């Protein structure tokens, strides 16, 4: 059997298993949290009212396409029905790739939700590559004749080997594997991991985000550094267009190639005294629900603004976080 044909044939069971696996993981997350929106990352791109139906539709699509791929793999549904299912699968993964790119830009704190609450890390280039790879895999199955079971013996080695190899590639592109190991107890969740600050600083300084901001940073050491859950924040003083600024980096606490985000804040807008929060009040201070709203990163290509000679960084009004002047980068 020709190698290209074997490669195309291997994609069908692989795609079906990915789709059904993703659907099962999402269903498990939904059942556990009793929320259709649980851990389904891209649904946050939709208006509130649509999130639940979109989450259910995503799961339903994956199930239908996964089952469809299996049913139309052989003689049943050969021809147009099989091609329709495979085209639908390709379309799903193409749309998913686009959604992940959008999610990465607008909500970098949200996971992709591809495999339910296994997919809780920020959307990485690996996740994008996986989605694109699966779209290509689905496209090359269009027009494939009905699959036949592999011949027993040595002839089965080639398709099985290709299947295993591609599965290994997908596993390497899947951050969920690490999450699975956490579930098995082989490693700690990042919220509990003791990560030395020096390691975070080293990772930051090796990043492209740092290099892009290095020209405006005026001190070698951060003026403040703190950690919340899986993120460590580092604040460096800087100067942009003659005005003092503070460059804030958020570094995701993992060993290799951590996600890093940055923002530039007018130093004058950051309170120098205890005026920002009424923490000395006898009343509970942080009662405003707006202060504890979920966090979203507004898409704003800020780095270009940094190089703009007309850069204006207005001062924040009061202490409202939402009013902060900022420019951001991923």
């Amino acid at each position: 059997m020709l190698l290209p044909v074997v490669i195309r044939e291997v994609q069908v069971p692989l795609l079906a298993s990915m789709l059904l696996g993703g659907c099962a993981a999402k269903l498990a997350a939904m059942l556990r949290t009793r929320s259709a929106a649980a851990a389904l990352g891209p649904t946050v791109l939709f208006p509130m009212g649509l999130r639940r139906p979109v989450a259910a539709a995503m799961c339903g699509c994956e199930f239908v396409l996964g089952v469809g791929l299996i049913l139309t793999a052989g003689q049943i549904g050969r021809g147009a029905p099989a091609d329709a299912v495979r085209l639908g699968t390709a379309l799903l993964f193409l749309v998913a790739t686009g959604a992940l790119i959008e999610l990465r830009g607008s909500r970098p704190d949200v996971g992709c939700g591809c495999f339910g609450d296994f997919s809780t890390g920020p959307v990485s280039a690996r996740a994008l590559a996986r989605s694109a790879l699966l779209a290509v895999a689905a496209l090359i199955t269009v027009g494939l004749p009905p699959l036949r079971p592999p011949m027993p013996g040595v002839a089965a080695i080639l398709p099985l080997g290709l299947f295993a190899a591609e599965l290994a590639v997908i596993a390497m592109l899947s951050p969920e594997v690490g999450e699975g190991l956490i579930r098995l107890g082989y490693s700690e969740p990042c919220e509990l991991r003791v990560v030395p600050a020096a390691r975070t600083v080293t990772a930051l300084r090796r990043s492209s985000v740092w290099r892009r901001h290095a020209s405006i940073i005026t001190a070698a050491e951060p003026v403040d550094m703190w950690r919340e859950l899986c993120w460590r924040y580092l604040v460096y003083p800087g100067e942009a267009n003659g005005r003092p600024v503070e460059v804030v980096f958020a570094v995701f606490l993992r060993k290799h190639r951590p996600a890093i985000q940055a923002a530039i804040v007018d130093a004058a807008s950051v309170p120098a005294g205890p005026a920002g929060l009424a923490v000395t009040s006898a009343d509970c201070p942080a009662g405003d629900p707006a202060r504890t709203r979920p966090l979203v990163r507004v898409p704003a290509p800020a780095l270009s603004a940094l190089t703009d000679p007309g850069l204006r960084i207005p001062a924040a009004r009061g202490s409202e976080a939402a009013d902060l002047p900022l420019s951001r980068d991923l």
Partner: protein
Amino acid sequence: MLDACADHACCGRCAGAGAATAARIARRRLLKAAVFRPADAAAPAGGSRAGGSRAGGSRAAAFAACGDLPRAITGAVIDVSPHFLVLSHGTGQERLALTPDATAWRGGPLDPAAVRPGDQAVVRLRARARGVADRIWANIGRVTGTIIERTADGLVVDEGMTRKRQLVSIPPRASARIQVRFPSLEPGYLIDVIGLRRSGALEALVPATYQPAYRVRQLPAAGLPAPALAGGHVPDAISGSATWHEPGDEPPGIAGLGYPAVDPEARCAEGPGPQVPGNLRLPYLSIGSILLVRNDCTGSSCALPVNSCAAVGRLFNDRCVTCGTSPRSRVADLTQASFVALGGELERGCFNATITIGG
């Protein structure tokens, strides 16, 4: 005379920094919001748990506004009559009405009019009548920590690197009651007692919990076998026991809490600290992080900032039994004002609580 201040090394990042801590909290929240901008207010409760990547919480909507909670006032009693109580605090004086159903505590139940001028009082006001006192605690104090010395004067207790050492005396009338719960009043053992403040020392009257059977030195180092987590994940909401602590170097009346798992890199806790067998490890946070704290006994809830370390809290493996048994040990060490505002009774020492990491 015992020197309770020896070796006291309070770092500026933790308790005692006062206004500096408040400024730091405000500053960090603003800077964090610059990186992760708050989303639309109408986000669903429990909607977007980005799990390991979550940069903030999303469940504020399920919590009542703190303004709905009763207010707590801390100050010195200036004058008292059967109908009025006048308190002096940092910003002036406050005159509070006393109704027949108001209650007081000073080592035991007391008529509110029996509170004496000069007493340091914590007063909970009624939620809907803010000028009316509901509950008064006079001269109440608490010491939680490791006994480091026992002398004829009493006990010297270490409350952690960020707090001063405390002197505890146990009067004969309370000795039996305390020793039922704390049979080993020897160096190395933990103690947690509530009583009356008298000239810098605490006169212990009520045991706040029961004594763990282990010495602190016997605890294994952290990082060794981690206790199992539900599903391998740090849960979104963590239920346990919420205790309280005295203001110490903090401004009286400050709202907030001490968190038992402040990032070891903040240099205000004693490193990762020992791991108490059976205790769930809490996710690491820092000064300025926001926790949504719910009193499971009353249903009151409030978002509070972490403004101090509570490294001693994680040494205990006790349960709060104010309303049922808390599923695990201490998850928050509230300031007096926050504990009272959330409906806690100071002399009981704790309430069953659920914390959720906020924004």
